[in-house]
């Protein structure tokens, strides 16, 4: 319950002094400071003429290359130094590259016991036939979680920067959106109608088969995002916003990131405490195998597809 203080009592409290300091009316060195309005800038005709003449003279003298020795010398030294710096940079980089281990050598420091362990025990421990997926979504799943969050934060930043706040602005922009492009282009629409389903199905296949063959959440999500962009280009915002709006994106990416975090927290918890995980690894090669990897792949795919599509939408109809 709050009680009302009198003016004098309030002046003694910490919050009052803090407020004063925040407003700038009290300075620890100067004491009380009174805020004054800035005086308007007034210039009489004589000083204005003088100033303009000064500026002109400075410009003329600075660019008068024949009589300005400093500029001439500077230009010459600038060229010499530019060439010298380029040569220096190239030499340093070449020396650096020549010291790198030879490409594809078996005795390179990169080919150490970590890579061996991944190759030898990867299938047994993660259950994923595709070792790359087993690596990024099991051994190094924490990195991938960070990457998904980076994508989400990037989308949030783009939304903050480019989204039009006022509703009238947004409507005016949407009406104006297709002025630069042919409306209802028949070629584009026909091609999109044929290509859109295979692209989406291919993307879903890449995500779902990420632990069996090449692919995974990131590439599949990018393919689905590209398919959505194609659909949007062909048919306009009116049709896509029937099934995908900013709210859909928010819900989907929040659900995906939360699901990823929960799944990974579970496996970290069991791993750190040496508890046997109840999620079966399944037979390698089956679609429902390799424990959590399939779920994590779907989560990453959803986040990436949403991010790509939202980026495009915001770039297209966002503010300037």
């Amino acid at each position: 319950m709050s009680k009302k203080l009198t003016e004098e009592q309030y002046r003694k409290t910490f919050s009052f002094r803090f407020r004063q300091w925040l407003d700038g009316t009290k300075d620890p060195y100067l004491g009380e400071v009174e805020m004054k309005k800035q005086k308007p800038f007034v210039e009489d005709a004589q000083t204005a003429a003088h100033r303009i003449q000064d500026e002109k003279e400075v410009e003329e003298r600075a660019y008068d290359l024949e009589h300005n020795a400093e500029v001439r010398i500077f230009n010459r030294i600038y060229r010499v130094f530019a060439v010298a710096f380029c040569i220096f940079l190239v030499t340093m980089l070449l020396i650096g590259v020549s010291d790198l281990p030879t490409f594809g050598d078996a005795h390179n420091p990169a080919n150490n016991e970590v890579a061996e362990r991944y190759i030898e025990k990867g299938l047994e421990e993660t259950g994923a036939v595709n070792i790359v997926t087993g690596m990024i979504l099991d051994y190094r799943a924490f990195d991938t979680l960070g990457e998904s969050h980076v994508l989400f934060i990037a989308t949030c930043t783009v939304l903050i920067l480019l989204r039009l706040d006022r509703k009238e602005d947004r409507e005016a922009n949407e009406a104006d959106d297709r002025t630069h492009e042919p409306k209802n282009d028949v070629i584009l629409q026909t091609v999109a109608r044929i290509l859109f389903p295979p692209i989406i199905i291919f993307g879903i296949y890449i995500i779902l088969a990420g632990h069996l063959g090449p692919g995974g959440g990131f590439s599949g999500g990018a393919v689905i995002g590209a398919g959505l962009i194609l659909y949007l280009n062909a048919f306009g915002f009116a049709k896509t916003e029937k099934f995908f709006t900013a709210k859909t994106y928010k819900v989907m990416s929040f659900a995906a990131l939360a699901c990823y975090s929960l799944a990974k927290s579970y496996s970290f918890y069991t791993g750190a405490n040496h508890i046997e995980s109840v999620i079966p690894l399944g037979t390698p090669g089956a679609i429902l195998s390799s424990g959590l990897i399939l779920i994590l792949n779907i989560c990453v795919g959803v986040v990436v597809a949403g991010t790509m599509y939202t980026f495009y939408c915001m770039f297209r109809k966002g503010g300037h």
Partner: protein
Amino acid sequence: MTIFFAILLLFLIICAIAASFSKSLLNTILIFMSYSLVMSVIWILLESPDLAITEAAVGAGVTTVLFLVTLKKIHAIIREEQKEEENE
């Protein structure tokens, strides 16, 4: 196979130089797109199909589209009619 690989690598170098020297921003983006496409073929030859799929989808697809939309936003793509008007 080695010759094929060498041709692809040569194409990459030419693309990289052409992208930085081309005067029009639109051309630069198209060259960058072909660079990504060749890069994804090279990833397959280097036996990393995972990267090839990602490169083709992100590098050649989404990035190019985003660049193009940005160019349109900053009015860097001048249409033919406008160019003719300016010339007249």
